[in-house]
């Protein structure tokens, strides 16, 4: 099962390396990893997507919590949550495909962020499934280059008071 973990860590050199080292050293998987600053400059926030059965996930969470630098670990995929990923896709845009690309762009609410005579660069945001769909549609047209951010996620607020 896929799990999305939200991890707050002390903003110290080596903290990220402790986490990735934990995963490689204990043969856990990392599917995607996103690290960024938070409002508190002493903390960094990591969103980590991993896979495993319930025992493996339990171990991963416990092992993360055991690290002296790790402040908080939440498995956001345990409840209702929103997740987003962003991708920049440079796609070959010849005369005959330019309109088609823009149509796909429109359907998926992507943005064109760079244009050249031979290419469009698109910005796509959404859950992983949406990115996958866009990539599959653009692939036959010709993807020249692609970068992705990895997932970020957040638990939904309770809808009732």
């Amino acid at each position, binding site marked *: 099962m896929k799990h999305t973990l939200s991890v707050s*860590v*002390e903003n110290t*050199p*080596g903290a990220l*390396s*402790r986490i990735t*080292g*934990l995963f490689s*050293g204990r043969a856990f998987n990392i599917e995607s990893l996103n690290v960024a600053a938070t409002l508190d400059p002493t903390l960094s926030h990591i969103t980590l997507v991993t896979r495993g059965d319930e*025992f493996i996930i*339990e*171990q991963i969470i*416990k*092992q993360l*919590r*055991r690290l*002296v*630098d*790790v*402040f908080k670990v939440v498995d956001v995929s345990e409840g209702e949550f929103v997740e987003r990923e962003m991708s920049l896709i440079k796609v070959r845009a010849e005369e005959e495909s330019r309109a088609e690309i823009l149509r796909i762009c429109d359907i998926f609410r992507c943005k064109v962020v760079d244009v050249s005579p031979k290419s469009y660069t698109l910005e796509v945001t959404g859950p992983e499934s949406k990115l996958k769909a866009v990539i599959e549609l653009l692939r036959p047209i010709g993807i020249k280059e692609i970068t992705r951010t990895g997932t970020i996620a957040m638990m939904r607020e309770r809808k009732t008071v």
Partner: protein
Amino acid sequence: MAKMAGKQMVVEALKREGVDVIFGFPGGAIIDVYDTLEKDGTIKHVLVRHEQGAAHAADGYARASGKVGVCIATSGPGATNTVTGIATANMDSVPMVVFTGQVPTALIGNDAFQEVDIVGITRPCTKHNYLVKDVKDLPQVLKEAFYVARSGRPGPVLIDLPKDVQNGKAEFNYPQEIKLRSYNPVIEPHGKQIERAYRLIEKAKRPVIYAGGGIIISDAYKELRALAKAMYIPVTMTLMGLGGFPGTHELSLGMLGMHGTYSANMAMANSDLIIAIGARFDDRVTGKIEAFAPLAKIIHLDIDPTSIQKNVKVDVPIVGDCKRVLKKLLDAVKDAGRPAEAWRDQHQAWLQQLDAWKKRHPLTYKEEPGVIKPQNVIEKLYEMTKGRAIITTEVGQNQMWTAQFYKFDEPRTLLTSGGLGTMGYGFPAAIGAQMAFPDKLVVDVAGDGSIQMNIQEMATAMEQRLPVKIVILNNQFLGMVRQWQELFYDRRYAATEFEMTPDFVKLAEAYGAKGFRATKPEEVDDVLSKGLEAEGLAIMEFAIAREEGVFPMVPAGKATTEMLLV
């Protein structure tokens, strides 16, 4: 407030943390701290002959005394030489602080002379580590390091000190108390879990306590004994748990696992309730995991949540300090108010069954005329020391025979590398233990293979006038691997036979120590008594039956009931 140099801060912190002895080896990148130690003159420094020895000695000091062991080394090779010692301490949860010198911050990353990324290298084998880049951070780091090393599940912490940080100056505000938002080990157990545990114990007909090193680390020896006695529950121990419950007690089943007793392994396999205390269901204990304790419910007490549910499914997990948890459990037992006889009656059939197993296959060995049996040497050592010595071991057959035939009654009397299985641990650890307890008898039980891995520390022991005793069980083999080759590799003794071993008696003499050798069974007593009574460092070498094995043995990957007996 006057400013203080980093090197001075290190010495000040050592004093405030109550450190009276450190083990180390100097070098260019740590020379400034050494200079300060020398000028200060209050902290005893033991100069080892190899940094691995320093790390193991600090570890032995810590295990014997319960205090934080400290060692110090220079950058580069000095630092890398401590790594085996650090990993050893990490696997066995030993509180230790390791200082390493580092090249000046401006040179870090430049492949400078004797530069190595020791913080990167030791990240997976320390509990935590620090590269101090600014002397202003040093007081906090020093305080944190000792706190992290000794609290929760203890472990080694490394502090890497660049040369300019040692010499840089800042205000020295040493924190009195420390609280870290990201590190809060759970000490007090959850009341509900205690209740749930008690309810399972109350119903169990065939309970067994499986006690590990956590008993010794948390100083829960008395509580464990009280709990077992109050409810007539038999106790088996891991290698790390030996001494955590008296080995001579009628409720003791001895050690379990790969080379455990028949009764201990049968108890686990037939139990309906396993109470695991400060143990971690290591593969050497469980054997084939699918066949492990098939009938038992499991209560697992541990301070480290990652140990729980890592290898086996647990019915009642209890996170907390073993001593605190056992106290609460004892309270629960007292509150329930059942008379002792009721517990005894409930477990009587089970205890009788265990007794029958004990009698059917006790720990034993075959005597052979004219040949010294290693088990006999350990039995005699036990008798002569009246079980009161601090015993360290190397790793392999020597370690297992010691675990089987020396009955440890007191905690912190067996120091052995259980998790990592480090050959070469025992002798430097004995040096550390002897530094902690100058008046106690400290004996390293070694093989002819492992003693040579840190034999250079003979000079250290002589220099410090430490009366450590070394028992070498010499079979001119790397015996444990040879045993595996005999049993599972058609007796192909690949690289396990020593065609050359030094004359250990002469070697002892070369260092100025005493050396004794026994080649016949009738010489064993004499050599042991001469060696144990000798003044100062002594080697007692025993030419043992060359192809003697350690039994019982559960072959790796087999169920623990599939024991090979003698």
